[in-house]
């Protein structure tokens, strides 16, 4: 039997609140299925399951806030026969599935929240409320318990209007909260989420600056060929298929890891653990403040068009507060691009337990010397902040040099 635990969705996450279970005991689970919705300071996260099998029991009820690593449900894996096994006690370590090693930082950092109380499975609500994310958010903001609202939408779905009417009637009867925690803890309001996100960013970044000996490198890269190639390519296709320069930079950074594999890794507290696949984490600024780092899976091997689509979708969903657990948990090397905000260079703070962050500034026309003559070229400042425990400036320099070389042959990206 496998245990489904509260996953760690980044080094800055310590606990999550179960908002909904999307499967009920007896349901068949495939790898990648969304099993639960969990509320964190980053939004409501679709938590995916990485063990195929049958959902045996739900341990943590809707509305309960539990620390990372807490057993949330048990899964009968594969062809294992059903058996009335007693639940093993939580070990405090997140299980993330056979193909995803436990994030070393999660191991190294003791949970700051006391162990979770054990909940009786009988209290669990397994029905998924038919409610849109927007209506659910509104309900949270207005302090309305969605379970107490009668839906008037399609198939009885709860609409924003239903929530507003319920709020007007004063129908705030927090069902889940009555079982577990005060409403403020179980259903945080938007403003509260902002404050919590600020605190978690503060904790992760303070830890980074306290523990990681950063070194910084910068180089200016001629994008003349890349921008000309991009303009040619984009002229021939509809807007939905056009590439933004940022996606070339992203792929170049992912490919350059070949030259310095130790930058695509995590620090487990004592040593570096290399990651074979590059899942670049893109830093996405949220409206109203804060940011999330979401994984663009298999960045080095997927075509530019696919990466562009992913980046677009991630941006929309990050801002809407709809993200998947794998997107939050899987990134291996962060790439941040503040060029849109007008700055020429960004020197990043490493997102632990990662060991490097690549930064790209604004693409801007500059005088550029070529073969002893002067011309005007679009250029970008690429930076690397890396962990000196893991790599040295020489290796970092090779990495940035590879980014430059790759961008000189955009058609091969």
């Amino acid at each position, binding site marked *: 039997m496998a245990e489904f635990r509260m996953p760690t969705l980044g080094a800055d996450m310590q606990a999550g609140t179960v908002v909904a279970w999307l499967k009920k005991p007896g349901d068949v689970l495939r790898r990648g299925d969304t099993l639960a919705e969990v509320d964190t300071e980053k939004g409501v996260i679709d938590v995916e399951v990485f063990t195929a099998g049958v959902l045996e029991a739900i341990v943590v009820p809707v509305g309960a806030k539990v620390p990372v690593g807490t057993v949330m449900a048990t899964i009968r894996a594969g062809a294992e026969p059903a058996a009335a096994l007693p639940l093993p006690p939580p070990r405090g370590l997140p299980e993330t599935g056979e193909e995803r090693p436990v994030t070393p930082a999660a191991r190294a950092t003791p949970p700051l929240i006391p162990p979770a109380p054990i909940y009786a499975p009988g209290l669990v609500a397994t029905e998924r409320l038919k409610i849109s994310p927007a209506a659910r958010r509104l309900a949270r903001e207005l302090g309305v318990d969605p379970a107490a609202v009668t839906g008037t939408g399609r198939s009885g779905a709860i609409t924003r209007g239903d929530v507003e009417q319920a709020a007007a009637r004063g129908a705030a009867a927090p069902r889940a909260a009555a079982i577990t925690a005060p409403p403020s803890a179980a259903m945080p309001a938007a403003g509260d989420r902002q404050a919590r996100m600020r605190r978690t960013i503060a904790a992760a970044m303070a830890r980074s600056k306290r523990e990681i000996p950063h070194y910084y490198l910068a180089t200016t890269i001629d994008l003349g060929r890349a921008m000309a190639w991009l303009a040619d390519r*984009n*002229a021939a296709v509809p*807007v*939905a298929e056009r590439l*933004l320069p940022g996606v070339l930079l992203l792929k170049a950074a992912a490919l350059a890891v070949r030259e310095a594999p130790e930058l695509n890794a995590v620090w487990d507290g004592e040593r570096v653990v290399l990651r074979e696949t590059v899942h670049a984490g893109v830093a996405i*600024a949220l409206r109203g403040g804060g940011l999330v780092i979401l994984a663009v899976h298999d960045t080095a091997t997927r075509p530019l068009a696919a990466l562009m689509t992913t980046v677009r979708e991630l941006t*929309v969903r990050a801002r809407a507060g709809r993200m998947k657990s794998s997107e939050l948990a899987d990134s291996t090397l962060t790439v941040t691009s503040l060029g849109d905000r007008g700055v020429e260079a960004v020197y990043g703070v490493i997102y632990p337990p990662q060991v490097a962050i690549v930064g790209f500034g604004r693409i801007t026309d500059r005088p550029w010397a070529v073969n002893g003559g002067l011309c005007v070229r679009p250029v970008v400042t690429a930076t690397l902040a890396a962990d000196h425990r893991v790599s040295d400036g020489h290796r970092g320099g090779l990495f940035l040099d590879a980014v430059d070389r790759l961008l000189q042959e955009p058609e091969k990206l």
Partner: protein
Amino acid sequence: MATREEVRAAALAVLGGIAPEADLTALGADVPLRRGLDLDSVDFQNFLIGLTKALGVEIADRESAALTTLTACMDRLAARSSPR
């Protein structure tokens, strides 16, 4: 073919989805969209995709940079027949 008012309405509807917290009723027709609504390049591309879908027109790559304000969108996209 869309009228100027239809282009304006479509643009505001798309922007409302991208920047839900913004007060679009207060958005002046000549305010630069990207700065006024803090849109990054991905947001702006999503805006262009939304516009092409809503209006049934295509927007050339070299033209997209000119769609900086609501007025510019109306000037360029109103009365344009769909090439598709």
